[in-house]
């Protein structure tokens, strides 16, 4: 097993599939195209399963590592590997891809071949992003995902697709270009004052990061921050998200919410915390403030929505606020909760978008006011929707609760004692939970309760077998993580505590060095 390049296989199988699809399939043979795309996604999922079964939970470092020189002249390597931070995200991606392909059968009717090609290429980009351990390689994958997503929104999207696609592309490109600056800064700092080697290798840079002078760390932090915060998205960089979600086809929204946003939060955990520990610590109050604003603001704005999809989109802003709060609690519970919540959000919000897609295909509307009393005609759909809604609002017994609980415990531990103004963070986050229940229950009431007064809804058909089939794994995961999250937590725990140690053990910067930003106050000790 160990000599099989498993990660390469997982990453590039979809791209290979895309190439074959492009070259050997005729446009008109849509049945074959769908079957093949499904097959590729399913095989990729199966191939990724050893990452679950053979993963060594005791090990904090990278596993399934593959390493080869790629562009030795500038020190770029093909360095692939997973640890507890990324392994579940990889599995979530392969699973989500299967679901995304299957849910598109009846939703997409034009340019189907190109559509599935885009989906499969996107999969390679996302998988590579989570697996790459070389900053340069990471950046390449990170950027590659933009292109197929741009087309998914721009071609198969809704009425304002072009606006949304361009906004998505430019907004996130703007962020990632700044991030590239940060990467290059790290690279050159290492070259000049660190190991002196030409390298983008994360494992090596991890040892260099904490020695970077505070003043420089702050700048690199800001560069990474913009890049990842746009992707997450954190308030106030979130406005591309509702537009992108509303215009994207269902599968696009599912992938966007389920996976693409996680690339931002993952970036913070993988790069920002361990590479820039002192700056991360210094920015905790700022990050926590933005997270808490995101939680409350996202929830309130979602409550004001009249379009289901936009409501779910804004709820993501709130949920991701929780994730960021957990990340910057900088302790085991918070970060573990954040990691779990990344999965949970992928599952629950992904499922919500799938459900919105199901009803949109039948009614071609997403306005909440067009519905009402649906429980009567589509009981199966209503039940799945109810479970998903409850999972999204963090009902105990379902997945969302475990993540939210751990995040809040972590935040409370970090910010409530000793008693300071920072107590506001967990206190307001808890208010976010109340608001979460409010907008979700209100949505549910307006869609499913009341009388079935819109004649267009009276002939609504319930979920088909295919729809139930792709919703079932999502619902099963909600219960599994909710009732028995240990297999998931166990896989993440060692790596999470390693990141926490890296982020907190580094010598805390003195306030002066933050205040003297740009004036070269003092440098962190360098050995």
């Amino acid at each position, binding site marked *: 097993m160990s000599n099989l390049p498993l990660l390469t296989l997982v990453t590039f199988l979809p791209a290979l599939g895309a190439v074959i699809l492009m070259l050997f399939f005729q446009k008109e043979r849509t049945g074959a195209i769908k079957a093949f795309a499904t097959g590729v996604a399913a095989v990729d999922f199966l191939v990724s399963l050893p990452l679950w079964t053979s993963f060594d939970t005791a090990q904090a470092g990278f596993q399934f590592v593959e390493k080869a020189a790629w562009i030795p002249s500038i020190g770029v390597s093909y360095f692939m590997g997973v640890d507890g931070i990324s392994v579940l995200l990889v599995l979530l991606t392969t699973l989500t891809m299967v679901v995304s392909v299957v849910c598109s059968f009846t939703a997409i009717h034009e340019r189907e071949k190109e559509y599935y090609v885009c989906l499969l290429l996107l999969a390679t980009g996302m998988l590579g992003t989570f697996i790459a351990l070389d900053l340069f390689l990471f950046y390449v994958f990170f950027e590659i995902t933009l292109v197929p997503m741009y087309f998914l929104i721009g071609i198969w999207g809704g009425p304002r697709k072009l606006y949304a696609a361009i906004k998505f592309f430019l907004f996130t490109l703007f962020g990632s270009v700044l991030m590239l600056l940060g990467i290059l800064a790290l690279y050159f700092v290492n070259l000049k004052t660190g190991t002196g080697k030409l390298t983008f290798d994360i494992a090596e840079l991890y040892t260099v990061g904490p020695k970077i002078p505070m003043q420089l760390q702050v700048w690199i932090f800001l560069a990474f921050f913009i890049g990842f915060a746009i992707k997450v998205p954190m308030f106030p960089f979130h406005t591309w998200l509702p537009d992108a979600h509303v215009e994207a086809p269902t599968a696009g929204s599912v992938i966007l919410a389920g996976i693409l946003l996680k690339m931002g939060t993952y970036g913070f955990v993988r790069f920002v915390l361990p590479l820039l520990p002192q700056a991360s610590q210094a920015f905790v109050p700022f990050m926590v403030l933005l997270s808490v604003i995101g939680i409350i*603001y996202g929830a309130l704005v979602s409550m*004001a929505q009249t379009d289901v999809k936009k409501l779910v989109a804004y709820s993501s802003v709130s949920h991701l606020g929780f994730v960021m709060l957990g990340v910057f609690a900088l302790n085991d*519970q918070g970060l573990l909760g954040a990691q779990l919540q990344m999965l949970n959000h992928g599952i629950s919000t992904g499922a919500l978008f799938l459900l919105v897609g199901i009803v949109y295909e039948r009614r071609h509307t997403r306005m909440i006011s067009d519905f009402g009393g649906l429980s009567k005609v589509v009981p199966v759909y209503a039940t799945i929707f109810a479970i998903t809604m409850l999972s999204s609002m963090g*009902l105990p017994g379902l997945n969302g609760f475990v993540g939210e609980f751990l995040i809040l415990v972590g935040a409370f*531990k970090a910010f409530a004692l000793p008693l300071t103004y920072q107590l506001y963070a967990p206190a307001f986050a808890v208010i976010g939970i109340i608001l979460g229940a409010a907008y979700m229950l209100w949505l549910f009431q307006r869609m499913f*309760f009341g009388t079935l007064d819109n004649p267009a809804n009276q002939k609504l058909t319930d979920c088909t077998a295919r729809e139930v089939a792709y919703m079932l794994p999502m619902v099963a995961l909600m219960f599994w993580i909710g009732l028995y999250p*240990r297999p998931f937590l166990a896989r993440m725990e060692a790596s999470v505590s390693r990141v926490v140690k890296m982020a907190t053990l580094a010598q805390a910067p003195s306030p002066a060095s933050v205040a003297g930003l740009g004036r070269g106050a003092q440098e962190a000790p360098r050995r």
Partner: protein
Amino acid sequence: MIRYAWLIPLFPLAGVLINGLLGSRVRDKAGHVASLMAGLSLLVVLGIAREMILGPGGSHVVPVWTWITAGSLSVSVSFLVDPLSTIMLLVVAGVGFVIHVYSIGYMHGDPGYPRFFTYLNLFMLSMLLLVMADNYLLMFVGWEGVGLCSYLLIGFWYEKQSASDAGKKAFIVNRIGDAGFLLGLFLIWTLTGSLSYAEVFKAAPQLAAPAATAIGLLLFIGAMGKSAQIPLYVWLPDAMEGPTPVSALIHAATMVTAGVYMVARTSPVYVQGPGALEVIALVGALTAIFSASIGLVQNDIKRVMAYSTVSQLGFMFMAMGVGAFASGIFHLMTHAFFKGLLFLGAGSVIHALHHAPAAQQQDMRYMGGLRSKMPVTYWCLVAAALALAGVPPFAGFWSKDEILAGAFFSGHYVVWGLGTAAALMTAFYVFRMIFMTFHGEMRVDHHAREHIRESPAVMTVPLVILAVLSVVGGVLPGFPPDAGWIHKFLAPSLAKAPGHAALDEGVRVVKAAAQAGAQGGGHGTAGIALIVLAIAVALGGIALAWRMYLRDTAAPARLERRFPGLYRLLLNKYYVDEIYQACIVEPIYRLMRALFDFDQKVVDGAVNGSSFLTVWFSRISGIFDLRTVDGAVNGTAGVIGFFSQLFKFIQSGMVQNYLFVMLLGVFLMVSAYLFR
């Protein structure tokens, strides 16, 4: 037997799965399946209770699986069997089973029949988890679970706007309480390093008073939501939109008492922070009198009961607050019997009136004279009413008297005074209900009259069972007052933590002092005086109701004319819902709309604005470029020099620019291909 405690929640779970997944196939059998499961649970509970009561008792933890581990945090799914959870199990499983059986009759023919029993079993499952949990987080699971079931069952007839509104309101108001509960959990974990009762109570004596008070108050916020105390009680009266068995089971007998149970369970922490207990006593007393006063004038039979429940929960919290934990749990138990019975009896009446116009089915002004038509229901309700009013030897007398005595002897005279006044109102409103419903002339709609008959046995047998319990359920476990069996049985659960014993001792000392000093006479004189007063209050309330509603029936109208303002204030429940609407709900609506506006105009405006500026800037650059190109055509040396400057700028060696241009190129080419 105790080892098999995990079976208790397992049966209702099986019921949920059977009825939930096979609902369309089980159909009319759903009620039997659900009742069977509730019955099997009850059997296990009885077996365990027998061992606990006859055996040595003690505290047993039954581990099932480890749920969450994260660093130093570890939470397991384990069940605790001790005297306190035994009493709660008996109440929940016992009353639960009886109400399941009753529902077979009551819900017969409802199109949502299997759905109803799925929810009802799900409720049993959650409630059993709540009382059996051996740690706070698992308790919270049950806590939220019962909240969910409450939401689903209140809104059971979801096509009715008022029902789904009431369900949503219940859930959201409860969530406000839950937020406090959660913060309390975090504080407990941060301070003691654990969430399991055993560990927390072991660490409790080391807690500083402010810390224990903070924990106590935060948890009490949760209790205020679930157990409907001021200011979070507003959801419970609206919850009467649910089917009546639901009101009996969830909104009277079991779920709403969860907050009381939680406070009693946490007593080792509460005694470390007496400040929190004072708050609880006062909130309880205020709630008791406040909602009893609303109950005086309501005309909807279920609303009267609802406000009565809020008021009685206030009594239980008074008990907690004054440190009479066992008396509070005792009242919780007797209340489950007689209030469950009152609701089921009301349900029986409503069931008999289901041919009357919808608006009149629950309105007591359109009832009257039902005694002869429904004798079983009538006599059962009278027993329940006597129990609620506190007439000896009925159940409520023993527990309520203990609470008032506890308040008095611990020096909480204000609490005692408010409680006594509330007790007077209680006796009045419950007999007002009896007289308006069953006595006097019949005011039922003519078409409905001929359909009135006694409910079937499946409904009346449960009534009789609860009636028997309402008669003997107080005196058997509770005699003699403050020293009955239930006190001895519960003592280990409530006095386990060090510090609690001291309080008990304190109470006893205060009692002795009060008895010896203030009364200056024989031991127990004050106690006997209090009992006499309590009986007088109960009988006085009943007599007043009799006078106003049977003898001089014009009296209520006279009073109404005399005090129109007060009457309207009470009838409209002090306008609390309206105040909340104006002060909380509306501002939140306004805020959310304003924020959405802000999001579109300001936050997104900045994004669009910057893109607009970029476009303009590039146009200007374009013009500039044209001129430069023109210049190049002219071939002047200066322009060549400028060009070299320009190229220098492009060839910066900055990889990101190259990449950017490269990506842009790829992207434009593919765009051209796809969008053509």
